[in-house]
């Protein structure tokens, strides 16, 4: 859903308003923190990179272009920021394949609400099935259903075109449905 105040906060922030920046920070810190932790699996690294990142956003606020919504911008640039930090740490030079290799989101059973709306996802092995999905599909699922981004934003964050992002989500759900029905066949 579109956040009516995003545009206003963004404008005030560009003028250097710390109050507006604190709203932006407090709104997005928790979600970005969880995303960072999912990617890096390290608490300290997540906290440090997130502070650096927000400082960067504030210091470079004048160069930022006007935005429809802030969320996709923050997710995609924090993702880049974090990947850069991870690369520096692991001293890997090759650039292109890194994202796919680094981002391998794992889900744990406690993270899933027991009362799932869909019959398919009520299956007790759903966490295992989720973790078996290809990395890109896992990230797309995470961004859509955990972070609440729409397909357009997910495409932006994952640096895909709209159609590939949509296909990635569809394939993930299709895979899960198939795996669940196989499990049901075995157990029946």
């Amino acid at each position, binding site marked *: *859903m*579109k*956040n*009516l*105040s995003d*545009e*206003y*906060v963004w404008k*005030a922030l560009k003028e250097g308003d*710390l*109050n*507006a*920046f*604190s*709203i932006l*920070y*407090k*709104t997005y*810190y*928790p*979600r970005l*923190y*969880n995303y960072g932790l999912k990617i890096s699996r390290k608490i300290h690294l997540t*906290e440090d990179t*997130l*502070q650096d990142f*927000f*400082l960067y956003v*504030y*210091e470079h606020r004048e160069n930022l272009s006007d935005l429809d919504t802030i969320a996709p911008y923050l997710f995609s640039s924090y993702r880049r920021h974090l990947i850069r930090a991870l690369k520096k740490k692991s001293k890997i030079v090759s650039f292109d394949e890194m994202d796919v290799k680094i981002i391998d989101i794992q889900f744990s059973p*406690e*993270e*899933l*609400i*027991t*009362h*799932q*709306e*869909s019959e*398919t*996802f009520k299956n007790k092995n*759903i966490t295992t099935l*989720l973790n078996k999905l290809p990395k890109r599909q896992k990230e797309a*699922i995470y961004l*859509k*259903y*955990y972070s609440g981004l729409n397909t357009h934003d997910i495409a932006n964050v994952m640096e895909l075109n709209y159609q590939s992002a*949509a296909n990635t*989500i*569809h394939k993930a*759900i*299709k895979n*899960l*449905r198939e795996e669940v029905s196989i499990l049901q066949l075995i157990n029946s």
Partner: protein
Amino acid sequence: MAKKNYDTIEDFLIDESFNNWVKATRLTDVDFWEEWIACNPHKKDLVFEAKDIVLGIQFMHIEPSSEKVDTTWSLLEDKIKAKTLEKSKKKSPNYFKLVGIAASILLLVSVGLYTFNKSPEKISYKTAYGEVLNLKLMDGSLVTLNSNSSIYYYENNNRKVWLTGEAFFEVDKKITTNAKFWVLTDDLNVEVYGTSFNVDTKHKKTAVFLEEGNIWLELKNGATQKMVPGNFISYSSVDSRIIERKEKVASRFKTSWKDGSIIFEKLPLVEAIQKIEDTYGLTAIFKDEDCKSKLITGGVPITNLSICLKAIEKSVNVKITKLKNQLIIQKK
């Protein structure tokens, strides 16, 4: 309903009537789609795949607490201020100490904003207008208290709390003792084992929304009601009846206030403004009657009144002026 071709997943996903069927929000759409599936058995797989995409997977949000975020924010704020000062080369360390002291006094004041009743066993908390308070009760349950609300309980029975105003509860399940948790209001009692739910007693009724788990309501007229996740029930003891009941409400509409925003979906402006009045203790005056029915959709922050009002002004194209405790709303 217009007959269309549904060949790809996308055709279903962008179709409003399909979405209504999935979420069971409109009966005519439910009938239409049940018949459609019966007539198009070869597309059944596609339909259910699209349905799962819309329903999605529900995650628990495991994120840093607001206290933690506040702490990291003040660290960053100090860093930004220090950097700005460095740039302008007005180095004055004493000034900084003062800012630090002022900030810690402010922090103490805001932490101390709840009142701690010193009578031997009654423990109570109260919030001012515009303030939201996160509490941890003695038994480990978490309570988020909305603005202008209060809650109290007795030390010797800390799983029975009295509420005026609005609060969101995350009750710890006591597996060993199976002890119940109670929330009491003027209209009803909520009986809980371990779950998360929202209770709102504003405007002479009590509205309960259940996010997760199971709860029982004991209404003041003697009737009992079981609730399942997504249910919303509003009961008034003045009228002695249930005044509103919804089977499935998305959690964000009822509980977004605790994360500092209110989310509206096609809500008339007059009702949206009511929420702002409740939060800040203001009275709204509509200069133009037809402004009242303008529909508003989207989220607004409630932690900052001026930004909140600007967001509303912009989205429904009205002018809102704040005069003391009044909000004057008129056409632009």
